[in-house]
């Protein structure tokens, strides 16, 4: 997968729940992910689905993705073209789901990043350059297990490739 990413920031606050990312009122679209993706995060920012461009970043605060186990949430963020989600912390199930669908999730201090900032991210070097601000932010590396799954393109692809878990 691509390890150098470039795009602009879309800023969200703390506690962005899976209800705000992929609302229950659109339950009937869960088997139609491209259609559900047209509503991604609209309950947090109504214009987001039409404003976001391929390669942009979602930048949250703490406990991003809390709530339901719906893997639909990170999946539609990815379908919308988002290159990575940056947050101070992620809820556990969302974190696992994001990696499983091949969406990079970066844990870092997001306070200095504002909406619209241009970011250059190097996934393998572990750093984020906020080009607009002229600052550099580091992020915590993923556990090795997750890097292996992410590199294979997600968990289903990992199992397809190896026929079993191959995480040692």
């Amino acid at each position, binding site marked *: 997968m691509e390890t150098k990413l470039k795009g602009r920031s879309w800023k969200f606050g703390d*506690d962005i*729940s899976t*209800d*705000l990312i992929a*609302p*229950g*009122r659109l*339950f*009937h*679209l*869960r*088997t*139609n992910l491209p259609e559900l993706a047209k509503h991604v995060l609209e*309950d947090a920012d109504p214009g987001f689905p039409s404003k976001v461009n391929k390669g942009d970043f979602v930048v949250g605060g*703490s*406990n991003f993705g*809390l*709530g*339901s*186990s*719906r*893997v*639909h949430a990170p999946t539609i963020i990815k379908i919308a073209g988002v290159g990575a989600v940056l947050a101070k*912390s992620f*809820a*556990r*199930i969302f974190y*696992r*789901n994001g990696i*499983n*669908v091949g969406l990079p999730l970066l844990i870092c201090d997001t306070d200095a990043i504002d909406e619209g900032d241009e970011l250059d991210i190097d996934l393998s070097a572990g750093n984020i350059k906020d080009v607009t601000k002229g600052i550099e932010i580091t992020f915590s590396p993923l*556990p090795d*297990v997750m890097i292996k799954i992410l590199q294979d393109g*997600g*968990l*289903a*692809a990992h*199992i*397809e490739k190896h026929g*079993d*878990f191959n*995480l040692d």
Partner: protein
Amino acid sequence: MGKTISEKIIGEHAGKEVSAGEIVIAKVDVTAVQDGTGPLAVQQLEKINLVQAKNPRRTIIFIDHAAPSPHKDLSNAHNILRRFSKETGAILSEIGEGVCHQRLVESHVDPGDILIGADSHTCTSGALGAFSTGMGSTDVAIGIALGKTWLRVPETFKINVTGKFNKGVYPKDLILYIIGKIGADGATYKALEFTGETIKNMSMSERFTLSNMAVEAGAKTGLIETDKTTKQYLEQQGRGEKFKVIKADDDAVYERVIEIDASELEPMISAPHTVDNTKTTGELKGTKVDQVFIGTCTNGRLDDLKIAASILEGKQRHHDTRLIVTPASRDIYLQALEAGYIATFIKAGAAVMAPGCGACVGVHQGILGDGEVCLATQNRNFKGRMGNTESLIYLSSPATAAASAIAGEIVDPREVL
């Protein structure tokens, strides 16, 4: 060095001794999906040509979130699950049978098991001494097909509860208090172990309410050691032989120990829009309520309905307040019918729904209007949770909910008990 319950169960399933922080591949005993997460799990297995269930009789497919179906797309999604069940031999739990977490504890999960379910409240089964945790469709799909998963052995917070509840205070008030105290992300990646004399004196139903909400503090699971109450419950459910002693070692290592005196607690409410935004019922007294919802995997069991019925007996809902009651399973519904609780609810003006998740997940059977306020016994009050971002959700015990349905506003249940 002593082991926590998580370390013991995961170690047994990984075939080696494990400690918190380690990442292991573990055998999985029970897997579960529901109609919101299951179709995607099936589609993922189809995509990688792995349509199979390693343990079909312990793979449970629930149709509970949109049941009966309110939309043709959901009817088609349900049929993906019915087909998968036929193809693999996995057990299908049809519309009306109940909410997955309630059905799992009633019939499928045993002490010492590992359960992974594609629903965040899978932690409910922790009250049976099972390591049960919510994951997404992808993880559970692989768990269904291969009978294993990867896990990080969690550190544990021990929550030691002593003292007796005052009148009008229930386990729901306790768990809301705990979440308010440690925060919605205070236990992320951790396991909780609920222990102490107050927990030992609780019924299984009350224990399920606690474990159910562990995830609302970010936790991976909410465990309770097994005892004679667990044994009696399993016997009632026809699987007494599955009882096993599951407990932590006396010298187990805990990341944090939290002491709570239950006798100091008051009726609690989570105010919009996060579960950790807790207040005492007194602080919110007088808040007008448009809809009261009693049910869910948190508080839709027989003793919850009993408390609500005792308050609503011979009374009427407030004319400006709707009342929806949804028993958590078919068994509970039947027992509540036989006990007369359902008649009490209907006479009090309630709409009684078939067992399922409907209103709580904002799919149907109780979606709120703009600006409306709901007081619910469920586990989540996030913005938009009940189908409308312009509405407000408060969470409480069944007693507070029932008393408030009569008053048309939030009241302290101790005023009517």
